[in-house]
């Protein structure tokens, strides 16, 4: 099999769109496969790619697929502007440029032998889905899996069928909530922090992984700490403006950290003094 002819991290590789599936009114999951005949690149949960649409622009998007599936790269994208809209409206067979995978991902190694708490808000479930896949496919290596997921409203929930399927695994708890429910919603209503009291946690042997809007992550980390988790066992995935994804353009700096290469996953211990600084 030919190796990739493009060695440099600034050159996008052509990947072809296999499928675009609608998750919610504004969020879509894209499945891409290598379009240049070369091997797919393995990624670690929590890593991201720079996705490029010909003539439109490039964006950092977290990989939301299964790490054990080598050939495909899966991304869940929320359409919020010109570039994201261009991505989600690609037809099957179209070429999309992919650079990466980049970044430091979730601590799958450190979490072995521990209970894993996944706390996701909104689109934040996308970069955490690979964690859930990896834990469920290597069940013996991990303790309990607790998934706490909050979205704005029922129609904004991602991966609903999978959420139900995950809940059926042994030693696995999946709790879902929405901020705004309707009469037809029989599930929980309230912000994701309200789910904590229902989670069966063992704080002393838990590793928590959190992704969502920054405000949500601030409240969730505080809540987890009050439940007895150590700041070094709580991980968050940060987001900032990115132009290169490889530590050269300087845009993603947060304090002294480059979110693209020192992160996007960091321990709460490291992030805590920075998160409370306004306009850092």
């Amino acid at each position: 099999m030919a190796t990739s002819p493009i060695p440099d991290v600034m050159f996008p590789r052509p990947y072809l769109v296999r499928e675009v599936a609608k998750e919610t009114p504004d969020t879509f999951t894209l499945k891409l496969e290598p379009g240049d005949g070369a091997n797919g690149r393995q990624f670690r949960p929590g890593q991201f790619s720079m996705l490029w649409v010909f003539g439109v622009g490039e964006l950092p998007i977290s990989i939301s697929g299964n790490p054990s599936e080598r050939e495909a790269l899966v991304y869940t994208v929320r359409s919020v502007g010109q570039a994201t809209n261009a991505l989600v409206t690609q037809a099957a067979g179209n070429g999309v440029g992919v650079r990466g995978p980049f970044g430091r991902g979730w601590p799958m190694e450190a979490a072995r032998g521990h209970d894993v708490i996944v706390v996701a808000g909104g689109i934040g479930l996308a970069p955490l889905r690979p964690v859930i896949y990896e834990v469920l496919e290597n069940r013996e290596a991990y303790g309990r899996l607790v998934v706490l997921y909050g979205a704005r409203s029922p129609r904004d929930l991602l991966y609903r069928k999978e959420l139900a399927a995950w809940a059926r695994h042994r030693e696995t708890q999946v709790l879902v909530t929405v901020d705004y429910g309707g009469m037809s919603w029989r599930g929980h209503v309230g912000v994701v922090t309200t789910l904590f009291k229902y989670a069966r946690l063992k704080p002393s042997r838990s590793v928590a992984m959190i992704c969502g809007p920054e405000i949500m992550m601030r409240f969730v980390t505080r809540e987890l700490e009050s439940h007895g988790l150590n700041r070094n066992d709580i991980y968050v995935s940060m987001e900032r403006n990115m132009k290169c994804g490889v530590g050269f353009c300087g845009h993603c700096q947060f304090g002294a950290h480059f979110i693209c290469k020192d992160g996007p996953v960091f321990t709460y211990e490291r992030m805590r003094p920075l998160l409370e600084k306004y306009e850092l």
Partner: protein
Amino acid sequence: MSQAPPGILSVGQLGQLIQILMRRGYSVVGPVARDAAIVYDQIEKVEDLPSGWTDEQAPGHYRLKRREDDALFGYAVGPQSWKTYLHPPEVRLWAAQRADSSFRILNNEGTGAGPRAFLGVRTCELVAIRLQDRVLLQDQYHDFIYETRRKGAFLIAVECTQAAATCFCASMGAGPTVMGGADLVLTELLEGGHRFLVRAPSERGLAVLTELGTTAANKADIAQAAAAVRQAEREQVRSIDQSSIRQLLYQNFEHPRWDSVAMRCLSCANCTMVCPTCFCTTVEDVSDVTGEHAERWRRWDSCFTQAFSYIHGGSVRTSGKARYRQWMTHKLAAWFDQFGSSGCVGCGRCITWCPAGIDITEEVRALQEGDDHGNP
């Protein structure tokens, strides 16, 4: 590091040196007086150099003044730094062509530069180049454009024998004595005849010097050169107290001085453009009218722009205060955590070229002395 003893070059021999480099395939870039400033441009002979010019610098002030002698390097630094060539303001990263419903990246024709010899690299600039090497070549990934240009760059340092009022390289540990990184080091001597002390710290520098042929320098020449460089150090009136500078900046996130500087700062980004270590860039994707051909260009960017920290919903650093604070904290403190040293070489350009005359050394002092009033 070659062990050859220092030599002496005459002014004429300097011209020959330029010729030798050109014959060896280098395009020689050096200082020229143009547009009322000393800028870096391609040169071919000694006459192209800014003979008899010096620069008068102060916060928000730069003037070229005539000297009484015909020193070729009798100035400090101009608005440009060598990053103009090594880390260019605008460069094409790649071009792509549509191919059915996908695309193909076209062979990059190269990074647009043959080998260059830089004549007149100041000590602060040598340190700045080393700092950019650390960022762009020695971290997790390396920048192939910078790498190509850097490998092809022959550096001829010229030690400073005077300092501008805005210079503070000595307090930053970045000069004025050259500490390494150059292929050739020149020190201009005026008294007792216009000539240059020359040293060849690198193998390729030595090769060029050997081809040129120089007379050996005597003890007096060497002493005169050392004294001239010491003079440059003595003339520096500005400084930054480096002790605990990291702590100072990290612990003063809410200091009222930031509000004071925010009232003066125009967010014009001049400082980041003239700074020899600032490396931030942005990318721009363009396509032609037919939509068949696309290119990605890389351009200098500045953390002072509103858009720099934009993520969906808005910018993280909306206020000018936050942006100035970011620049200064990064340059003087965060750089240590990221790259193991300060990001500032004390060249003073940001002071000279700030239209509001903001002086980074003064801002540090205000933080250190707990100046709450921050009167401009």
